[in-house]
């Protein structure tokens, strides 16, 4: 599909929003809208994939919209094409899922008008070729997603989540606006081609990097700008959460890639240092908080933060290698980053869909009241298990393939000449390993507590399997997680044109190796064969199952004396989510969070019940945001006096400002 076709399709998406408003009386409106979005997104995905695999040349188009002297520039190259495919595939899956999920939705009229424009805005961000279109689409994306977050604004903390989100989104857009202002240079050229032609000086480029980290980082969830994400993502309906977590964060990374790897010109060696440091901090902070919370969707949102950290580590590595002239290593890290983005969009969408299925079946998001869902919802449970395994980087699933590639890149760091990088990268690698291990624990906890064991509440006991649409969407994503994990070589080869575009080098073709193996550096050094691992795991598991059934099932069993440690059938005797996380909570408290446990144990003979209280405090709030809000408040109080001046004093202010500026002009020139 050509760029013009893409834009027509996106225009169709944009039109579906107002259509949902005007047709609000039509029956089955939600099926119509979601069906429409599904078809359009499928078309766009197909077009983007075909362009990507065929190696289509970049294509540009200028529409006479927007600023009269600028027009609206659009362009599709390999990078845009990749993100277009990621965005639209996930959006198609989400709309298919919503065909089922949307039926249980009470606030239809507050979701349907915003969902198609949200998807369209993400598409436009990816296709934009000038700062004006980019920022406009970016802001549309923020506002549409904000409206979706606020769909259930009367529930719980959702209104506050929306407020924090819109503040952080404004900050991010503002930072990007400044970044583009700096990139535009003195003559204010807003088109990307103009920016590419005039790379800024080193100091300005550093400032642009910082602004891009703030602007794109606040949207993607880099710490300490991540605070809105665990509030806002769970507040939205589940298919929206999936899109926000799985795709919108990727669009933010696209913005970062476009600015830093494309528009900013040649990189300096130290750029990778702050990127890797924030990435590592983000990964660890994200996964630690994911371990502490009981709300299914909040855990997933925190885990998104972790994965964004992982991706930023890989991006920083790629820059570090590229600036030191190690092209293949840079290509390896960049491939890993893009691969992980793709994977995260798949399994994070899958997991959010799964949590939406749990929500539909039980009306409950608190893990502490779930349990035993696997019996009632076997298919959802299986898909959730695949997603959990993938995000915990278990072979043979896709999460393992991409994280393994990142570690391969980290292992290449001793060859770097700079001592800063030589010292930083192993530390980052250690933090990454910590985050990966904790992520495993986190998803064991999530899946184990909610799907295994026995139901902890009435809602979990009455759960039923969800409908075909939701299962279909989850099944497709789960299958893709497996396919991408088993055949990583094809994915890596498909990514190589994008990698070449970004870092000017590419990895050796992997599909030539045979046996479906991949060898990122050299075959003698390390290689991985997803298919082999998959076959081995499958065959050994089947064999073990067969052996156990054959040998154990026939034997006479007399039950129960002590009932395998389960003499008491009360579900409260099971591991709770809090108890599962307790060791980690105690080890890390005071480091990024403060956890206070309060035990209220009545004296012997006192009949009142004992109480255990747990409070968790995010230190980022205490050390970053409280001082900022206090400062703003104090400043506003001071400035408040300006509202009550007399006419003459206002005139004096204007006069004083004028004289001051003239003085500055007189002294400065």
């Amino acid at each position, binding site marked *: 599909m050509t760029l013009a076709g893409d834009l027509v399709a996106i225009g169709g998406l944009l039109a579906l929003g107002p259509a949902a408003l005007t047709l609000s009386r039509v029956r089955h409106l939600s099926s119509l809208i979601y069906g429409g979005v599904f078809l359009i997104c499928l078309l766009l995905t197909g077009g983007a994939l075909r362009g990507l695999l065929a190696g289509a040349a970049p294509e540009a188009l200028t529409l006479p919209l927007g600023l009269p002297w600028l027009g609206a520039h659009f362009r599709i190259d390999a990078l845009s094409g990749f993100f277009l495919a990621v965005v639209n595939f996930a959006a198609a899956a989400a709309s298919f899922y919503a065909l089922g999920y949307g039926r249980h939705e009470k606030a239809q009229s507050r979701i349907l008008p915003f969902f198609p424009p949200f998807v369209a805005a993400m598409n436009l961000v990816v296709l934009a070729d000038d700062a004006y279109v980019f920022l406009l689409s970016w802001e549309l994306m923020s506002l549409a997603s904000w409206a979706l977050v606020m769909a259930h604004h009367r529930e719980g903390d959702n209104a506050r989540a929306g407020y924090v989100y819109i503040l952080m989104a404004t900050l991010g857009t503002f930072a990007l606006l400044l970044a583009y202002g700096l990139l535009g240079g003195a003559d204010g050229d807003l088109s990307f081609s103009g920016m590419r032609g005039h790379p800024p000086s080193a100091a300005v480029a550093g400032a642009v990097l910082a602004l891009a980290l703030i602007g794109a980082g606040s949207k993607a969830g880099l710490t300490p700008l991540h605070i809105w994400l665990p509030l806002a993502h769970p507040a939205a309906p589940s298919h929206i959460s999936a899109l926000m977590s799985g795709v919108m964060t990727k669009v933010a990374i696209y913005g970062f890639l476009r600015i830093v790897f494309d528009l900013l010109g040649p990189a300096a060696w130290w750029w990778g240092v702050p990127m890797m440091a924030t990435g590592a901090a983000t990964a660890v902070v994200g996964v630690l908080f994911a371990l502490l919370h009981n709300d299914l969707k909040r855990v997933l949102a925190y885990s998104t933060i972790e994965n964004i950290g992982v991706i930023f580590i890989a991006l920083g590595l790629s820059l570090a290698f590229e600036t030191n002239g190690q092209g293949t290593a840079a290509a390896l890290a960049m491939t890993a980053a893009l691969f992980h983005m793709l994977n995260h969009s798949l399994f994070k969408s899958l997991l959010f869909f799964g949590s939406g299925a749990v929500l539909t079946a039980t009306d409950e998001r608190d893990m502490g009241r779930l349990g035993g869902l696997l019996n009632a919802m076997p298919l959802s449970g299986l898909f959730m298990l695949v997603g959990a395994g993938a995000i915990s980087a278990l072979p043979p699933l896709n999460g393992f393939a991409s994280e393994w590639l990142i570690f391969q890149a980290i292992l290449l760091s001793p060859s770097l000449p700079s001592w800063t990088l030589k010292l930083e990268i192993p530390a980052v690698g250690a933090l990454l390993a910590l985050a990966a291990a904790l992520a495993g624990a986190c998803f064991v906890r999530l899946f184990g507590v909610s799907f295994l064991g026995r139901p902890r509440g009435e809602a979990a006991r009455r759960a039923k399997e969800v409908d075909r649409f939701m299962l279909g969407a989850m099944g497709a994503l789960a299958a893709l997680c497996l396919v991408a994990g088993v055949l990583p070589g094809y994915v890596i080869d498909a990514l190589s044109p994008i990698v070449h575009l970004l870092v000017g080098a590419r990895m050796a073709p992997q599909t030539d190796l045979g046996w479906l193996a991949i060898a990122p550096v050299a075959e003698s050094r390390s290689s991985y064969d997803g298919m082999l691992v998959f076959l081995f795991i499958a065959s050994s598991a089947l064999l073990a199952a067969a052996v156990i059934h054959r040998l154990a099932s026939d034997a006479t069993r007399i039950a129960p004396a002590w009932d395998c440690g389960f003499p008491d059938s009360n579900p409260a005797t099971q591991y709770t989510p809090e108890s599962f996380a307790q060791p980690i909570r105690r080890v890390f408290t005071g480091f990024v969070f403060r956890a206070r446990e309060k035990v209220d144990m009545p004296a012997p003979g006192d009949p009142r019940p004992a109480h255990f209280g747990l409070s968790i405090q995010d230190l980022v709030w205490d050390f970053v945001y409280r001082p900022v809000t206090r400062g703003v408040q104090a400043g506003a109080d001071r400035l408040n006096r300006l509202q009550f001046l007399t*006419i*003459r004093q206002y005139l004096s202010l204007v006069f004083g400002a004028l004289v001051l500026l003239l003085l500055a002009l*007189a002294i400065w020139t």
Partner: protein
Amino acid sequence: MDRLYFDIAHLLAGGLVLTSFMLLYQDRLYALLNTYALQALVLALAVGWQAHIQHAAHLYITAAIAVIFKALVIPFALHRMVAQLGVHREVESVVSLVPTMLAGIALVALSMVVMLRVTEGADPLAREDLAFALSVILLGLLMMVTRSNAVSQVVGFMSLENGLILAAAAAKGMPLVVEISVAFSVLIALIVIGIFLFRIRERFDTVDLQALDDFRGERR
């Protein structure tokens, strides 16, 4: 001959600055209005001279507007207003005269420094006129800031506008439409301010704006 042209233009523009100082110095309302009329007359002469030098016929219209409206209609209207208001005819100032005059001298110096430096390489005639125009504008603003009498604030505003016209006449190529619209906007402003003056007087029996502040409970 060129030298003479330049000197006369210089003299007239300088005369405008001088009348601005005279405006600053007045402490009686009627004298203030008369000085304003004088300034408008000087402005008309300066603009007319520019028209002669530049051979720009439309500047004669600007000069005519200056004479008719600024030197005759507006001062006359303000005279009548002050008479009808029946307030005492003294200008209440917030800052006393001597510091105001000193500040005025400093402002003229500042505008000279800024303008002469910024417009380096431009036509010397335009340079001088622009510098004087900026001085007139700043002095008008200074007058608005240091006087608390509403009438003298109006006069300050008008003299500020005179500075703008001088600048516009000096910079060649200002379209007539713009000048006429500026003149009319000033006229409208005068009407609006006049109505306000009467309203203020009705309520507070004075046109001293300090009374408004006192009424709001502000301290001096």
